[in-house]
């Protein structure tokens, strides 16, 4: 027993010594984040955590949003949509020769240059001066005959509202009839890979060594520099078994362009848990398709991604439409059969008829069609802005990606219901809503209305919400079963059921969407409606298919 304890202690000392030597070698201007993979102690699982307090309008939520906005340095477009400055996403027509393409770019922007095409892209990035209006440049490019589409790199964001964790049943899984679905398919999707396009995933142990600079929040509060720090990072024990990470397939981080898409937010890990939380192990929570293989594809930047990058590199931190498009293509090319996108953005309602306008995302639409063509079924969160006024689109604006989903067979937009199968107060409505799934809500149910999965204890990760005097380095090795609400939580339920359908041999994405819609439990007005779509997904009904006469 003494020897057993001595081993991790010695390992920790050696790692710490190595890190000290490494970090001392860094210069003041070297802000690169180092990730030592597979180096770290096991995670701490705190089980249910009830001492966190976040609501949609809580001070914590507002401060988190303000910090992100302050760090991102995004520009607001004419319509209010936020985009990454200094770049325009352009799809040139195939027949356009390179000199013509360059001429088109020069006509749109004096500083415009076609960058080296990134991996997993069928489009180009045109670099422009960050001070230039990217929407204006995109608009001018769209006038050119050489250009198929051009758009600013609109920022996408996770569609969730974190909330209090509770000690309660996982009402969401029985609601979609999972117990009987597991009777039908105990293997729960073991042959299927589900890509989670999100903030990353807590899928491996690591030690990360950023150098934290001083930063200023949006309200002007200055936080002190912490300098080089050593941050422990662990795989979520309810996501990756202690025997290793064999269920993890082809991870990639398009935010930071590296092969380690570690989640520094918790959203992607929570969403992954709904899809594939380890189940029947006597601890924690359950997931829908608990044996699937998981492909973490990081396209959303969190506060820590920006703080770890340091301000000299912050413009290189991704999280916009082009990263989502590349992530989709990457997932499709690397064996994913189901893709979950718990993310979105608001925009005009007529992107279908006029995709070449600001705040539409033709680059993502093209990538979605590509992925479906490769046999991927895709779920997209329906949007959380039902009560929000988003100028100039007004209250309950169209969720751009969900609207695209409604036009592509094999891509489904998912609205959220609460514990009582009612419309969740935040869930966007519109003609583009196709299905519903549990997204949770505290209204009328309190903390019992949340969707709970294992993810980071945000008391220990979101230290930027503390006062400057209390600010300290985060740690990403403490987990709990945390309650979230949002259409972000609804979409992965459908993704999990789709993975189980794939496991049963139904591999056509359009057919899967068709079956999910036909076997859904109709809610609200009879037939399809703008609130619930075709209704609440029913895993058991879908897996059973139809009889001949009944």
């Amino acid at each position, binding site marked *: 027993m003494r020897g057993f304890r001595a081993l991790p202690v010695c390992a920790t000392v050696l790692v710490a010594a190595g890190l000290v030597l490494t970090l001392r070698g860094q210069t003041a201007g070297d802000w690169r984040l180092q990730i030592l993979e597979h180096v770290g102690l096991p995670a701490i699982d705190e089980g249910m955590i009830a001492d966190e307090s976040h609501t949609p309008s809580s001070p914590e939520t507002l401060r988190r949003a303000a910090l992100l906005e302050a760090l991102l340095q995004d520009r607001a477009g004419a319509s209010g949509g936020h985009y990454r400055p200094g770049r325009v996403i352009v799809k040139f027509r195939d027949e356009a020769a390179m000199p013509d393409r360059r001429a088109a770019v020069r006509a749109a922007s004096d500083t415009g240059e076609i960058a080296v095409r990134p991996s997993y892209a069928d489009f180009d990035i045109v670099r422009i001066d960050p001070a230039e209006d990217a929407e204006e440049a995109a608009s001018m490019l769209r006038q050119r005959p050489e250009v198929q589409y051009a758009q600013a790199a609109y920022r996408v964001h996770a569609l969730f509202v974190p909330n209090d964790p509770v000690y309660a049943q996982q009402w969401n899984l029985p609601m979609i009839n999972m117990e*009987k679905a597991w*009777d*039908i398919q105990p293997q729960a999707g073991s042959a299927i890979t589900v890509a989670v396009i999100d903030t990353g995933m807590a899928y491996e142990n690591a030690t990360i060594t950023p150098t934290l600079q001083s930063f200023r929040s949006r309200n002007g509060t200055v936080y002190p520099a912490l300098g080089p720090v050593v941050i422990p990072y662990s795989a979520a024990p309810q996501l990756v078994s202690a025997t290793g990470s064999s269920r993890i397939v082809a991870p990639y981080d398009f935010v930071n362009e590296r092969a380690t898409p570690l989640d520094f937010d918790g959203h992607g890990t929570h969403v992954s848990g709904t899809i594939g939380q380890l189940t029947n192990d006597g601890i924690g929570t359950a997931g829908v398709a608990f044996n699937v293989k998981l492909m973490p594809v990081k396209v959303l930047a969190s506060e820590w991604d920006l703080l770890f990058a340091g301000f000299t590199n912050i413009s290189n931190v991704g999280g916009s439409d082009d990263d989502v498009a590349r992530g989709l293509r990457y997932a499709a090319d690397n064996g994913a059969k189901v893709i979950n996108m718990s993310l979105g953005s608001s925009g005009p309602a007529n992107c279908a008829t006029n995709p070449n306008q600001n705040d539409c995302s033709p680059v993502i639409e093209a990538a979605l069609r590509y992925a479906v063509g490769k046999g991927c079924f895709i779920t997209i969160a329906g949007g959380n802005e039902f009560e929000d006024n988003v100028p100039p689109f007004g209250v309950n604006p169209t969720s751009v990606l969900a609207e695209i989903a409604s036009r592509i067979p094999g891509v489904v937009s998912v609205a959220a219901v609460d514990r009582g199968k009612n419309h969740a107060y935040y869930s966007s409505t519109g003609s583009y809503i196709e299905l519903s799934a549990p997204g949770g809500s505290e209204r009328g149910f309190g903390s019992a209305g949340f969707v709970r999965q294992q993810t980071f204890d945000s008391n220990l990760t979101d230290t930027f919400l503390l006062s400057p005097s209390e600010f300290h380095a985060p740690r990403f090795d403490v987990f709990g079963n945390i309650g979230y609400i949002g259409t972000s939580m609804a979409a992965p339920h459908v993704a999990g059921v789709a993975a189980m*359908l794939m496991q*049963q*041999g*139904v591999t*056509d994405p*359009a*057919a899967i969407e*068709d*079956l999910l819609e*036909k076997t859904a439990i109709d809610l609200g007005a009879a037939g399809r409606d703008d609130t619930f779509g075709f209704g609440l997904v029913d895993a*058991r009904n879908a*897996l*059973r*298919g*139809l*009889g*001949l*006469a*009944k």
Partner: protein
Amino acid sequence: MKTAIPALLVAVALAAPAAAQRPPQRPPVRAPVPPVPPAPPISFRPFVVGTEESFAAIDTFDAGFGHTYGPFFGGGLQVLFRDRFYLELGASRFKQTGQRAFLSGGRPFRVGIPLTATITPLEVTGGYRFRLRRLPRVRPYVGAGFGSYGYRETSEFSDAGENVDTRHSGTVLNGGAEFRLHRWVGLGADVQYTHVPGILGLGGVSQQAGENDLGGVAVRVKLVVGR
């Protein structure tokens, strides 16, 4: 039962050469032609029947079983009146196991869950048997009638009330010919059309396909015992 039809065909094939065999040639002897015995006013003739039916609900059966036809086996009793009119009572059974399925874009997709469908027709038909002067051993016939069609559908992982067990009426039309193999044995072959509404089309794949007829067109072979 699957061997009944081939056995029957073999019997028919053997019967013809046997009939063609003749003893060594002898001088013709003029014997008095025995009078044809008058047909009894009523006779009872049991029969067994094998059927291959092409179902009208093409998309429904294709989705569940991967093909649109299937065999029925059964039997019954035929009552002849003065050798010309008949009334026939028959019962048969179809049973096949496929998979639960669904249609999308007009294409069938099976979900891997076993489904067993059983059809049990009880049919009553009446008709008329023609006489052919040049072919006295062949008796063409046409008939019509009605039936009661049982349909049972069971699947794995079904809850109470999710399986189907129902019976509905339908109509029958048939026509064919009976070939007398022996004084007491006849072989009939006919084509039968059945129309059975009320079972399919109310749910499941058949509703998706817009198909509501459990019937179809069948080729039947009957072995009849009796004069």
